[in-house]
């Protein structure tokens, strides 16, 4: 079970979050090299492109390609920004927090390299308000880097300047959506903007902007230090590199593990997470955070990468696996998620505002015992009205996708809930049959 690791490799040192700890492990060397040996912005972008790095924030969009959408500064002289998405609020996802807390300078160095590549004037790191310690650690890292001449004006005596600012959110899932994030950063309600225009043309304060996830940016210094070829040696052809896999729910050893993309989900579950807890069997699992859809145990050999999970009827998302044992209730978990989406819908689009509310009400009555057979078809019809691409942002899709997956893969359980009058009825019926509660 050994494979090369890099993302978590520096975190063993007690002082891994300090400049001293970071530099003792080679930190800021590659940034210095890029600056001093005159690697051009285009060279940096090309290397990231060649690495095949895909965004770790959920959509898996190729990072180098995204960077190349920023307008040519010769022709478009507007101020240019990057917003680092540290909102991390997709249920199940708990990885960016580890990076910010244990290796914040790695994120800062990634920001500097991105700033060089895209010729940014400033970077904002948008951190969810609840993440106090991670916020404080990155804040302190920026201050240390500034003192060392690595952030601010004329960095290391060159003509390259870049400001990095921290920004604290205040707890709304929708502010993780890239345009909701920009509205929130501007000091408004986090209402997503219709696209187009896209952020590269009209982003923060109407200026060219790129939004990238923390883990995405954290990969960049490694790629530039060790090369695109090295990066492609891990993971697979279309999804190279390692990823931080959060695995939670009914497993013996939940945690955040660094794994190569393409590792079969079974191996993650059994070798890393210690298997399903209490010696039970797997009933259902979610591969990549709450928006990616429930799968059955028969899909557990699927490789954890973008294409394989798509072919299996789900998505890689944020790589956050959530496991349900054979005594869990898929209806309850679906209800919890629909309550969440209902609560977090910003309300701009009627399909999403009304749809999430209805979905949560229907799962509630199935759970409570007032469900009807027609409700199962109604779930599908509602979800069809909400997605794909029917609303301003993808939150509506994020509620529709798990709903479809429950109807597709766990229809029998839905029927049981109708037949036995809800959760209590199902538990009683199982007891009669002598199956675990």
């Amino acid at each position, binding site marked *: 079970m050994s494979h090369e690791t890099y993302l978590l490799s520096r975190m063993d040192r007690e002082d891994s979050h300090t400049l001293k700890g970071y530099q003792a492990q080679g930190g800021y060397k590659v940034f210095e090299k890029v600056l001093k040996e005159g690697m051009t912005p285009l060279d940096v972008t090309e290397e990231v492109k060649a690495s095949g790095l895909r965004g770790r924030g959920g959509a898996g969009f190729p990072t180098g390609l995204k960077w190349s959408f920023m307008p040519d500064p010769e022709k478009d002289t507007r101020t240019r920004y990057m917003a680092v998405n540290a909102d991390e609020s997709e249920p199940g996802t708990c990885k960016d927090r580890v990076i910010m807390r244990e290796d914040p300078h790695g994120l800062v160095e990634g920001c500097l390299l991105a700033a060089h590549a895209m010729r940014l004037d400033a970077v904002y790191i948008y951190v969810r*308000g609840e993440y106090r310690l991670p916020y404080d650690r990155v804040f302190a890292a920026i201050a240390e880097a500034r003192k060392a001449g690595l952030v601010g004006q004329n960095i290391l005596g060159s003509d390259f300047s870049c400001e990095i600012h921290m920004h604290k959110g*205040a707890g709304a899932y929708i502010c993780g959506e890239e345009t909701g994030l920009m509205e*929130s950063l501007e000091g408004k309600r*986090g209402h997503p903007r219709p696209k187009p225009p896209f952020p590269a043309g009209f982003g923060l304060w109407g200026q060219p902007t790129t939004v990238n996830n923390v883990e995405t940016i954290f990969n960049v210094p490694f790629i530039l230090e060790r090369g695109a070829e090295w990066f492609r040696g891990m993971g697979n052809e279309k999804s190279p590199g390692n990823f931080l896999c959060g695995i939670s729910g009914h497993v013996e050893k939940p945690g955040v593990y660094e794994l190569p993309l393409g590792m079969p989900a079974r191996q993650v579950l059994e070798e890393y997470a210690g298997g399903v807890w209490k010696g039970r069997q797997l009933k259902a699992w979610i591969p990549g955070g709450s928006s990616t859809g429930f799968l059955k145990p028969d899909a557990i050999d699927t490789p954890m990468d973008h294409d394989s999970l798509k072919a299996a009827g789900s998505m890689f998302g944020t790589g956050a696996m959530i496991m349900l044992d054979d005594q869990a209730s898929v209806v309850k978990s679906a209800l919890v998620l629909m309550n969440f989406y209902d609560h977090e819908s910003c309300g701009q689009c009627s399909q999403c505002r009304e749809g999430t509310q209805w979905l949560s009400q229907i799962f509630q009555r199935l759970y409570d015992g007032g469900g009807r057979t027609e409700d199962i078809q109604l779930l599908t019809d509602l979800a069809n009205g909400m997605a794909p691409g029917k609303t301003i942002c993808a939150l509506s899709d994020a509620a529709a996708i798990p709903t479809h997956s429950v109807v597709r893969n766990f229809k029998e359980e839905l029927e049981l809930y109708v037949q036995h009058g809800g959760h209590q009825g199902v538990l009683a019926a199982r007891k009669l049959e002598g199956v675990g509660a």
Partner: protein
Amino acid sequence: MALTQELISEFDELKTHYPESQAALIPALHRCQEDLGGWLSPDIIEAVAAYFGMEPVEVFSVASFYPMFFLKPVGKHIVSICRNISCDLRGSDELVARACELTGAKPGQNSADGKIYLETVECQGGCANAPMMVVDGTYHEDLVADDVNKILGGLA
């Protein structure tokens, strides 16, 4: 004016981080809530609005969008229990029940002695250490219901 001189100088500095000053609004509201009594009273909203050159109703509209801002008085301690999927799977219902029993409050209410404000919250990014709760900004993870007694019992 309800703002302290210290806060005003902090906000003056914060504003320099952005091309438009309104971007400093949410960080500023956080600082007000921390320093000025734990919630955003109408007086504070008015003072912040005056500082940013906005209408109070605009500031209120922003503040009310974000669950971390309180627009009514809350207890001295904020106890937030995550109820999302990973925590639910590992028993967050029991934590909530225990916290209700101990405080006599339902989620969204203050305890009878006004000391504790109890709320349930969405995923806090502690999923691999579920179930979890946050007390005054500090994460408590890998909990069982009895831990709730210890943690709440330790609040002065």
